[in-house]
């Protein structure tokens, strides 16, 4: 085995890492468009990938190879992966047709679970299989024994980091999913090609033929118009005969434009957001005029999202309005609207009074020197941790700071004019109470969309139909719907009484940045649409608290303690699983908290994720290269466990004394986050290779010739690691963080890691 082969092998590991993250990212995005995703479905989809990786890794580890240095099998796996990726993209797009679901229909969490399970099977499974297989193969090539595991982990992680950066910054904005998938296939084929000549079996020759086929066909498809054509064809099938006139991706979202007769509808990740030329007239008129007419003479207006397509047009009717600041995080949306403009949108985007800002709304409100008469929050109710940041107490305080003395904040929330279910009540009460904590006065106009208007000035509670109508006439504004009769109907005390009466017995915690309850309530409500059978689970989950979680952890600990009698080494997999779980939650917490401080900026998020993964890669590399010098691995492992426990606890202190930390200079907080992410990745990265080594040493098979044991061990431990991460991802984002809150979440992790440390005491020392 020469060095050249080893280098080619290592580069193929990089490509495997790259291919994995690219496939995961692209398929996740495709499925979000398919399913109109929220935080729960994101967790479930990622979870399905992770599950298949775990299964693939496990089976890959147990795979019995009779042939030595089975590079042929390795190449076949890579080829299979590179074919399955574009096929999975196609499958995602035609999935609704295959299952007979109308393309416009949303689906519940259970269909999302089994469809993501099915779609991600080939790519996830093969990727996991490749990892453990590569560990054994590396060992066979280099004879480095358990160090192979750490090294392969490092190389793949390195490839993952590069792939993650490339896919988000280079691939997605400029290429479609098929071009990306076929590009990965081409890259894989080239790498395979270099590995083949050193090999003369029948399998090798077969691999050579297939590699050439992949190479040539992917090259042709990319250079010619083939990939583009497949892409357009699959879009046509996905949207089932709708006239798709535009399909573009930005880092933030996928924007599709459908034309029907003379109407354009702009879809964001499969959900229609703006319709032109005729908007929902009732909505835009009420959302603009109720707040503006509640002001004597509105001059400066801030619109956070949702302005184009009619809302801003209504605001422009006021001659007293001198300035409208319109903030959208993604420039792509407005660029697309400009491309397919209609009279209203032309007016809106060209009027000198309108200033467009492309950045995160939370950053904008921190930085703007302007004070506003009216702020309109044009976002739908929170469906991700990210969007929840616009419905929290801290955000409302931020708005209060940029409002004039008599300024008004207005937002809409799902409502009803017939009946309030428990879930709808919880959602409304949560946001209403949070608003009430910050603003002294409020007005609710109940509707299918409830309009909430809040202010610190008493004036708002004195609005009446006559007053608003008077002002409408004074401003000489023409509207289709707003008339005295309409105002009397909408502001009738009958509706107010019914609304507050419906909600009177409900109590909920506030919606806060670090305790995103609002998100949970909205997902629980949304779940009713598609999976009402899961209602009870959400209902019970609502009352989870720290004590019940701690009790649960104790029960798990005791169960594993009992299991240890039969499976002596179980404390190691338990430690790895809990670390996998914790690592996922740390990443979620730190990324999410960073967004609270700094807002959602895509290149920052990329940097943070890279730092985390970089920590993991470097951790595993350092440990692996120092294996020679480490004799008491178990002790080192225990020390790492203590470090992770301490880390969790320090995170808890950090969030508990958040106000103190917030007073630091911005740049220091920034560095702190990067450091914490790196450290959490690093500690996770160290554990995995050590765990493998301990396990192998315990089995007395550190001998590098025993490739089977290497495979089995890494297979088992990797799948356990991933399973922990899967549970963390699904439960963490959806239930634990929104319900427990972040500080309590950190305590939970500290106790969990403490329990795994205690269990480690039972590990048999030879």
């Amino acid at each position: 085995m020469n060095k050249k082969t080893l280098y080619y092998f290592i580069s193929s590991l990089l490509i495997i890492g790259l291919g994995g993250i690219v496939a995961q990212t692209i398929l996740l995005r495709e499925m979000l468009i398919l399913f109109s995703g929220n935080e729960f479905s994101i967790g479930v989809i990622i979870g399905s990938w992770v599950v298949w990786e775990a299964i693939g890794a496990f089976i890959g580890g147990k795979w019995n190879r009779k042939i030595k240095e089975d590079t042929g099998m390795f190449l076949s796996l890579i080829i299979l992966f590179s074919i399955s990726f574009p096929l999975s993209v196609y499958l995602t797009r035609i999935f609704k047709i295959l299952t007979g679901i109308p393309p416009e229909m949303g689906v519940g969490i259970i269909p999302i679970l089994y469809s993501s399970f099915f779609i991600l099977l080939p790519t996830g499974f093969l990727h996991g299989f490749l990892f453990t297989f590569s560990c054994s193969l590396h060992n066979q090539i280099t004879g480095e024994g358990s160090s192979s595991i750490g090294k392969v982990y490092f190389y793949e992680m390195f490839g993952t980091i590069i792939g993650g950066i490339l896919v988000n910054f280079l691939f997605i904005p400029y290429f479609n999913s098929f071009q990306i998938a076929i590009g990965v296939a081409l890259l894989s084929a080239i790498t395979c090609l270099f590995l083949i000549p050193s090999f003369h079996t029948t399998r090798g020759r077969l691999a050579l033929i297939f590699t050439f086929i992949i190479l040539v066909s992917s090259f042709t498809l990319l250079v010619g118009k083939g990939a583009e054509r497949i892409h357009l064809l699959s879009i046509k099938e996905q949207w089932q005969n709708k006239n798709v006139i535009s399909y573009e991706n930005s880092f933030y979202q996928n924007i599709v434009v459908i034309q029907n007769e003379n109407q354009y509808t702009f879809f964001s990740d499969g959900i229609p957001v703006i319709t032109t030329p005729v908007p929902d007239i009732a909505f835009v008129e009420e959302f603009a005029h109720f707040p503006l007419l509640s002001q004597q003479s509105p001059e400066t207006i801030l619109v956070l999202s949702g302005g184009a397509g009619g809302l801003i047009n209504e605001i422009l009717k006021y001659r007293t309005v001198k300035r409208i600041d319109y903030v959208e995080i993604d420039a792509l949306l407005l660029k697309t609207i400009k491309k397919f403009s209609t009279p209203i949108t032309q007016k809106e985007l060209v009027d000198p009074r309108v200033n467009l800002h492309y950045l995160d709304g939370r950053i904008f409100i921190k930085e703007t020197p302007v004070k506003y008469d009216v702020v309109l929050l044009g976002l739908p109710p929170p469906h991700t941790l990210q969007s929840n940041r616009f419905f929290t107490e801290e955000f409302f305080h931020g708005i209060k700071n940029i409002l004039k003395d008599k300024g008004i904040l207005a937002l809409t929330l799902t409502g009803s004019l017939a009946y309030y279910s428990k879930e709808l009540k919880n959602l409304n009460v949560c946001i209403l109470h949070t608003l009430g904590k910050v603003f002294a006065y409020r007005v609710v106009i109940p509707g299918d969309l409830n309009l909430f208007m809040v202010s610190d000035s008493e004036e708002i509670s004195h609005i009446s139909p006559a007053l608003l109508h008077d002002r409408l006439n004074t401003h000489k504004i023409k509207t289709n719907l707003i008339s005295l009769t309409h105002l009397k109907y909408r502001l009738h005390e009958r509706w107010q009484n019914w609304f507050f009466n419906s909600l009177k017995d409900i109590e909920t915690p506030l919606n806060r940045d670090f305790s995103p309850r609002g998100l949970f309530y909205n997902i629980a409500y949304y779940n009713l649409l598609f999976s009402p059978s899961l209602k009870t689970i959400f209902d019970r989950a609502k009352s989870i608290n720290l004590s019940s979680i701690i009790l649960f952890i104790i029960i798990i600990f005791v169960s594993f303690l009992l299991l240890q009698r039969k499976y002596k080494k179980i404390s190691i997999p338990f430690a790895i699983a809990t670390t996998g779980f914790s690592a996922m939650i740390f990443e979620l917490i730190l990324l999410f908290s960073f967004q609270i401080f700094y807002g959602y900026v895509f290149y920052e998020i990329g940097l943070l994720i890279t730092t985390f993964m970089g920590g993991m890669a470097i951790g595993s590399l350092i440990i692996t290269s120092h294996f020679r010098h480490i004799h008491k691995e178990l002790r080192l492992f225990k020390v790492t466990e203590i470090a992770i426990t301490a880390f969790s606890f320090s995170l808890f202190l950090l969030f508990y004394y958040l106000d103190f930390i917030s007073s630091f200079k911005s740049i220091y907080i920034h560095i702190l986050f990067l450091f914490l992410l790196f450290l959490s990745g690093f500690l996770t990265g160290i554990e995995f290779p050590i765990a493998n080594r301990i396990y192998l040493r315990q089995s007395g098979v550190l001998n590098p010739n025993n490739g089977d044991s290497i495979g089995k061990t890494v297979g088992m431990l990797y799948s356990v690691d991933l399973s922990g991460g899967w549970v963390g991802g699904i439960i963490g984002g959806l239930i634990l963080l929104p319900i427990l809150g972040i500080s309590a979440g950190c305590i939970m992790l500290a106790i969990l890691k403490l329990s795994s440390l205690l269990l480690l005491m039972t590990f048999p020392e030879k």
Partner: protein
Amino acid sequence: MISRRDFIKIACLTPLALKLEAKELTSKNSPSLKEALYYQKLDEKKKTVWCLLCPRACTLSDGETGFCRARKNIKGKLYSLGYASPCATHVDPIEKKPFFNVLPETLSFSIASAGCNLRCKFCQNWQISQVSPLETVNSFSPPEKIVSMARTNRCKSIAYTYTEPTNFYEYMLETAKIAHSKGILNVSHSNGYINQEPLKELSKYLDAVNIDLKGFNSAFYNKLCEAELEPVLETIKILKKSGVWVEITNLVIPGHNDDTGMITHMCEWIRKDVGADVPVHFSRFFPMYKMTGISPTPVSTLERAREIALKAGLHYPYIGNVAGHPGENTYCPECRKTLIRRAGYNILENNLKNGKCKFCGGKIGGIWMV
């Protein structure tokens, strides 16, 4: 001084008494049961019943609830779960139901109990239509109370709406009888999925009905509502024959029932089999319930539908959910002048006199006086 024995007795009985009281409170809040009309006992031994209220014709074993979730077999008898247990009671303008040719600018006392015998994927009131009355918080409101509340709120009519009123048939029927005796009109918004016999009985007390003619082929009804078209057409014809004022709502869903051929076919059928005077509301659809990833109806599609209706000879085609559109107005079929100008539910101008056009004197179809 009480004895030790008495003390223990009281200490044990008090919590028990409290528990019983709690139970009583709960049963007060739970729906009251009323034996249903229009069903047959199939098997005395097995206690199965056959519900004959709607075309679903559910056969129910003991303890089983029907497809509508609002009728239950309890020990061989069929009961209506939503009787006197409305989950929604509101005062709405009659235009909201929608009724454009019935008592404009009057209020309608609107009620509903939970449940529905269809499963439309675009239902606006899914929160109460796709659940059972046992799952909603209801107020105990016997028929007399409803009529009394209607009068207190100065409503000229009672509307049986929001969910599908067929599944609280008995409640609707009894309330309607009392309403008539007090000079209050009965209006209803229904999917039309009801059998002929109960419909004919109900028609004696109904003054106006708005039927959702959701699409004009069975494929649409099968795919999006899990139902059939024919029973709905029969219902419309029977209502008209019975002298009930009928208005039709067609929610136009892009890509599903917006086809010119289908709309033409529908308008021609209405003209021929029901009458030119039947108002048809072509309503703009917005993403709703399970249909979340769809564009709203283009206004041009609704305008086209309205043109088709006029061409087919229908007198009162309307466009709904497009506030301020001229299609919301009522025009005289004779002289074409604007009779009633509307914006949403609000009347801006009314040029009717005693049910006739102020300009040319032509009779205008509808209910213009109590």
